[in-house]
């Protein structure tokens, strides 16, 4: 027999932990259709029964206000799982039962997993499990999700319930005379008109009308506008009456009575408190230090620096392995394949592309491990708590800081994991604003560009310049977030109302599963698009290539240079390996040939699609002080920001310039007419703000759920960057900085 079981419950109730215990590594992570909420599924086998388990998003309630709640509700009514397992935190029973009551009102076949009884006991809370089960009319199974205790009993109960009943009678909670009267009247209308009753219980539909639930009301209006109108009229009447007599809204009365029902349960001996709720738990004692006015921020800076260090320092080793592997692969291909377009495609398009995709994997793994550790331990909620006041000013959320830091808020991060880090944000508008502005931070790939320009023009003020650049990107990101939140992502801040969960030691298994899931999703979903774009960018920088006549010119030059020296020297150079001492003549010849290669590469680049675009844009970009060479380099930077350096090298006929050692190029720039400290500053500003690299764009698309935001970030960021660069360059020129 196959049964579908839905896991539901409050956030922090141990739901994910239980899901991991039940399904182990046999999980499948997808998305609910049309939204960015994760859908996790897995299988559990017991006594020949295969149980298909769906982990619903954690919610406190079942209103239509958050995507998570709508998703959970829709899944339950549309997919009709055989059983709903409601995971309830025993140490927090009253609040957790609020959701339970709402499930019972919808009439789902249910089993309650009473989780963390051990914690409750330690806190002096005794729960009469049998009484709770009798009063609610559903099986209650004690579990300890962290260790997997009780999971077999839980599944046995779930199988039993799934076999027994298809539909149970919805729980009826009394909401006081006014509401109850209206409910009866509305139920009759609903039942006689068969109004949505195929999907929902009649009384529940009536309740949702009284609560003003937008989703149900719009469904109702579509189904039968007449009936819907009747129900709305009754709601209006009751609402007016309650306002006049009690100065209270129906939705408030409904919530009060649900908690009243739960309190009545508790008073019938379900909950016995040996201590008052007021006492300080261990967690509170930790908070006295960790969120202390003075110590709190210091500890937080330490933890964020630690996360940063962990992500970017420890991942260096595996990143290095990957880099050398793909470097080796590229070399191997270049020695075994004949020179030509195909080789160029394989090396610069495919190998570099795959290398680029996989190069981020260690970063993503380390970052998600670090963030999962902070999240599961409960610390992340404290960060949001401490920083909310600051970030709220800019229309963001306290949790936005994680994405900023990882993206390069401490210079040298990476926006790819940074954009993914916005998943910890639950409020959609704040999240979108964060993921669109996080790429303004100074990622590790922008640093070589800054290093090049600083070395060329601001050598004496290196440290100061880096600080200024970091400040500019933070200020820019926050101000632009504010701008976005007051224009295109307008809307009130989502209520902060947030639980500070007790500190808990995360389980290694949970951390490992979480990290692996995210990493795999990145490889699977982003990988293919990134590879495709990398091939397209290669084509842009390569085609249409030099016309044959020009190529022949270069060949002629080479022949001429070789003919000018005696044949022995040519042979010596051709035969020489990498580390062989050459004669003076051969060294000179090699220099000449390399210079010709560089000029040919330069000419090829200039003739490519990217080059032509760069040249065409010069008339516009000169306002910011950029010539066509800079333009081409910036186009190349869309592949990855450090490519700006190597492309500039090609454009100045210096051959391949290693971004890490750009001394020759910075010397060249400092001597080239047209370059000045002001032009360099303008380019620095542009580099901070312009379009994110395409890997980041792909991540923005994935995380926002729409190509629209990916394209927006390319166009909008480039516009912001251009306007700022023009402002700097023009104002600077006027006050005479340009000379």
């Amino acid at each position, binding site marked *: 027999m196959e049964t579908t079981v839905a896991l539901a419950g409050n956030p922090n109730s141990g739901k994910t932990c239980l899901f991991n215990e039940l399904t182990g590594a046999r999980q499948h992570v997808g998305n609910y259709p049309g939204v960015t909420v994760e859908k996790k599924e897995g299988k559990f086998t017991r006594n020949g029964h295969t149980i298909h388990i769906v982990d619903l998003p954690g919610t406190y309630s079942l209103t239509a206000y958050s995507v998570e709640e709508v998703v959970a509700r829709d899944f339950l009514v549309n997919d009709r799982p055989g059983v709903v397992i409601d995971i309830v935190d025993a140490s927090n029973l009253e609040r957790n039962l609020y959701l339970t009551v709402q499930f019972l009102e919808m009439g789902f076949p249910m089993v309650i997993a009473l989780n963390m009884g051990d914690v409750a006991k330690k806190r002096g809370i005794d729960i009469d499990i049998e009484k709770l089960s009798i009063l609610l009319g559903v099986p209650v199974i004690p579990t300890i999700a962290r260790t997997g205790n009780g999971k077999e009993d839980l599944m046995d109960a779930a199988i039993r319930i799934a076999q027994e009943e298809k539909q149970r009678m919805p729980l009826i909670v009394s909401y006081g005379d006014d509401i109850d009267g209206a409910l009866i009247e509305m139920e009759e209308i609903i039942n006689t008109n068969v109004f949505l009753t195929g999907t929902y219980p009649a009384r529940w539909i009536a309740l949702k009308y009284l609560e003003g639930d937008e989703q149900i009301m719009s469904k109702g209006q579509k189904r039968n506008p007449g009936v819907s109108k009747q129900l709305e009229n009754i709601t209006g009447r009751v609402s007016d009456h309650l306002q006049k007599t009690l100065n209270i809204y129906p939705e408030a009365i409904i919530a009060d009575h649900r908690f009243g029902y739960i309190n009545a349960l508790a008073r019938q001996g379900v909950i016995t408190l040996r201590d008052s709720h007021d006492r300080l738990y261990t967690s509170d004692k930790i908070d006295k230090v960790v969120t202390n006015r003075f110590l709190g921020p210091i500890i937080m800076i330490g933890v964020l620096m630690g996360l940063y260090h962990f992500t970017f320092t420890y991942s260096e080793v595996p990143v290095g392995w990957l880099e050398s592997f793909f470097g080796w692969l590229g070399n191997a291909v270049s020695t075994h394949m004949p020179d030509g377009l195909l080789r160029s495609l394989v090396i610069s398009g495919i190998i570099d592309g795959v290398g680029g995709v996989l190069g981020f994997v260690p970063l993503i793994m380390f970052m998600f491990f670090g963030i999962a550790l902070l999240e599961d331990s409960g610390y992340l909620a404290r960060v949001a708590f401490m920083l909310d006041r600051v970030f709220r000013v800019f229309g963001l959320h306290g949790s936005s800081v994680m994405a900023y830091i990882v993206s390069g808020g401490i210079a040298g991060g990476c926006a790819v994991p940074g954009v993914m880090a916005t998943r910890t944000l639950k409020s959609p508008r704040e999240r979108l604003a964060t993921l669109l502005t996080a790429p303004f931070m100074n990622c590790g790939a922008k640093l070589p560009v800054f290093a090049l320009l600083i070395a060329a023009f601001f050598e004496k003020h290196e440290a100061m310049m880096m600080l200024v650049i970091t400040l500019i990107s933070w200020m820019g990101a926050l101000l632009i977030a504010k701008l976005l939140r007051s224009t295109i992502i307008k809307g009130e801040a989502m209520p902060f109302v947030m*639980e500070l969960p007790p500190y808990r030691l995360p389980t290694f298994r949970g951390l490992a599963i979480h990290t692996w899931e995210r990493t795999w999703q990145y490889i699977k979903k982003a990988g293919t698009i990134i590879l495709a774009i990398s091939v397209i960018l290669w084509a842009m920088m390569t085609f249409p290539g030099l016309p044959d006549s020009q190529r022949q010119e270069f060949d002629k030059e080479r022949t001429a240079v070789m003919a000018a020296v005696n044949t022995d020297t040519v042979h010596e150079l051709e035969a020489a390996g990498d580390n062989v001492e050459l004669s003076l003549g051969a060294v000179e010849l090699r220099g000449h040939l390399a210079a010709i290669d560089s000029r040919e590469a330069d000419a090829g680049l200039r003739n490519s699609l990217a080059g032509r675009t760069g040249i065409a844009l010069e008339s516009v970009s000169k306002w910011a002080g950029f010539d066509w060479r800079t333009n081409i380099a910036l186009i190349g930077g869309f592949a990855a920001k450090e490519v700006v350096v190597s492309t500039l090298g090609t454009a100045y006929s210096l051959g391949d310039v290693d971004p890490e050692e750009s001394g020759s190029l910075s010397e060249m720039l400092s001597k080239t007419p047209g370059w000045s400290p002001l032009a360099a500053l303008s380019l620095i500003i542009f580099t901070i703000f312009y379009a994110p690299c395409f890997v980041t764009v792909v991540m923005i698309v994935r995380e926002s759920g729409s190509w629209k935001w990916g394209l927006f970030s390319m166009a909008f960021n480039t516009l912001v960057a251009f306007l700022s660069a023009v402002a700097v360059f023009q104002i600077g020129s006027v006050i005479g900085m340009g000379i």
Partner: protein
Amino acid sequence: MTILNMREMKENQSGKITAVNVRGELGRRIRDMGLVPGTEVKVLGRAPLFDPVALRVMGFTLTLRNNEADYIDVEVE
């Protein structure tokens, strides 16, 4: 016995909620977390910049912004 706005409560002060004067999403979220008339609350502390506030409600810790606490009336000793 006086009725205070929650924003005016001091650290470690306890009280009983008498009214939550807001509807819509904010009202719903406040109530979903158990802040309904009759519930006992205690202020555990405030964030370093004095906002949000951390409360003890039914044995767990809840945080609210001051401008959200403004809608909640509390009866204190």
